[in-house]
């Protein structure tokens, strides 16, 4: 299963480190990544592959949310399918 991680908040050091640390820890592979500043907000999107993940989706979601809270960013993870379904005919 592929998922999209969205990180939004004020730019600071260690964002990629904090997110990728969790992904590495749970054996989730990063397939694509981009980042931009939108309306003064740092926005990072990551496409990840959860095929070999060693925890449940819910646990990964909770770990990312907690990491987001600790660095003052909002971090979400959603299955990729929802974006495809809504934006492609």
């Amino acid at each position, binding site marked *: 299963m*592929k998922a*999209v991680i*969205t990180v939004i908040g004020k730019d600071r050091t260690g964002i990629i480190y904090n997110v990728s640390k969790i992904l590495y820890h749970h054996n989730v592979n990063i397939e*694509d*990544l*981009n980042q*931009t500043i*939108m309306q003064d907000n740092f*926005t990072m*999107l*990551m*496409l990840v592959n959860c095929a070999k993940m060693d925890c449940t*989706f*819910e646990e990964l*979601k909770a770990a990312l949310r907690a990491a987001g809270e600790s660095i003052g960013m909002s971090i*979400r*993870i*959603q*299955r*990729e*399918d*929802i*974006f*495809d*379904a*809504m*934006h492609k005919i």
Partner: protein
Amino acid sequence: MPLINKDILETIKMIERDNLDIRTTTMGISLLDCVSHDPKVTAQRIYDKITKKAHNLVKTAEEIGKEFGIPVINKRVAVTPISLIGGKADKDDYIEIAAALDRAALELGIDFIGGYSALVHKGFTNNDIAFIDSIPQALAETEKVCSSVNVGSTKAGINMDAIKMLGYIIKETAYLTRESESLGCAKFVAFANAVEDNPFMAGAFHGVGEPEAVINVGVSGPGVVKSALEKVKGRSIDEVAETIKKTAFKITRAGMLVGNEMSKRTNIPFGIMDLSLAPTPKVGDSVAEILEIMGLEKCGTHGTTAALALLNDAVKKGGIMACSHVGGLSGAFIPVSEDAGMIDAVICGALTFDKLEAMTSVCSVGLDMIAVCGDVPESTISAIIADEAAIGVINNKTTAVRIIPAYGKKIGDVVNFGGLLGKAPVMAISEYSSEEFIMRGGRIPAPVHSFKN
């Protein structure tokens, strides 16, 4: 997939800011095989079947909601119209069945269970009469059970005897639930042209033409449509229609994805997607606000019916393009108490009962969640249902009445239900009598355009 910032962020904004959600995932369950010669056995079979079939409904819906990052607000069950499966049940037996439905709903942790229903558009069976008689007590004694009666259809005409009964049933329900603002009436709806696969309450039931079990999904998102229309301010109506259509497409796709996933995990076939703009009392989640953003100073002013017709039609078109199995009611709901913009419009006098009735000729359902004085005569309630049924039957659409003659309340009072049901200002209706018309009873013949064979 290449990461397309715009699309991803748009989806997130729809969910986080504009309240896009999966309003309901409703499992339809046939109870036809629960019929027995002994109503007690029937009640037990019903409880057993529902709790077995839907045992993982809530858990699965929540898991899927988390994975896709879109909230699934309500988890519900709809069953075969109970009047059909009573066997030789009398009024008390039906109440026992209602209690079994309620117990099953509590056990499953679902929000509501629909299908305490009867289909009497052409006439009553003996069971139907005992069943309808049981509705007020059933609604007063249960927490999760929702009830509906279909009183007319384009093919059969309008059963005026049933409509006469319902005036009494609704008043009695209001009285029996008087301690909770006559809340029982919010769980009852009178239909014309009821659909068999509607996932929304209070009118959901599992029609007899439906399979053994089915998953139907209802998506909402008035806030998303409003937000999209803010970007085409001042442009022509064509662009408004196009924008609504495109937005409806995206919303429907999100629902279909959830529906298909629910179906896969519960091993129950996917039935239909119902794309209904269903407001909640939250500001920014209102159908009235969509109409206002189109350029109306207040919902209810002249032009409101045209704006609503355009909205309803564009929503359907977007939904149909997005999903092959669109069904239910699909369109725009206009429940007064559940829509912050409607409540405001009623309080400031812009939206009257009569204008609401006109709006129901182009919305997807009907007069919904409207509070009137507690002392309104039964025959007036019946006449309101008859008017609404006539709009549905003649125009070949579903119409419904969910009206609350709130016990002890007068014009100027506000009936507060709390939660998703919101609060309803008591509305003025005609003080002139419809008594003689209703007392005639009988059946309004089917309209000429029903003869299509």
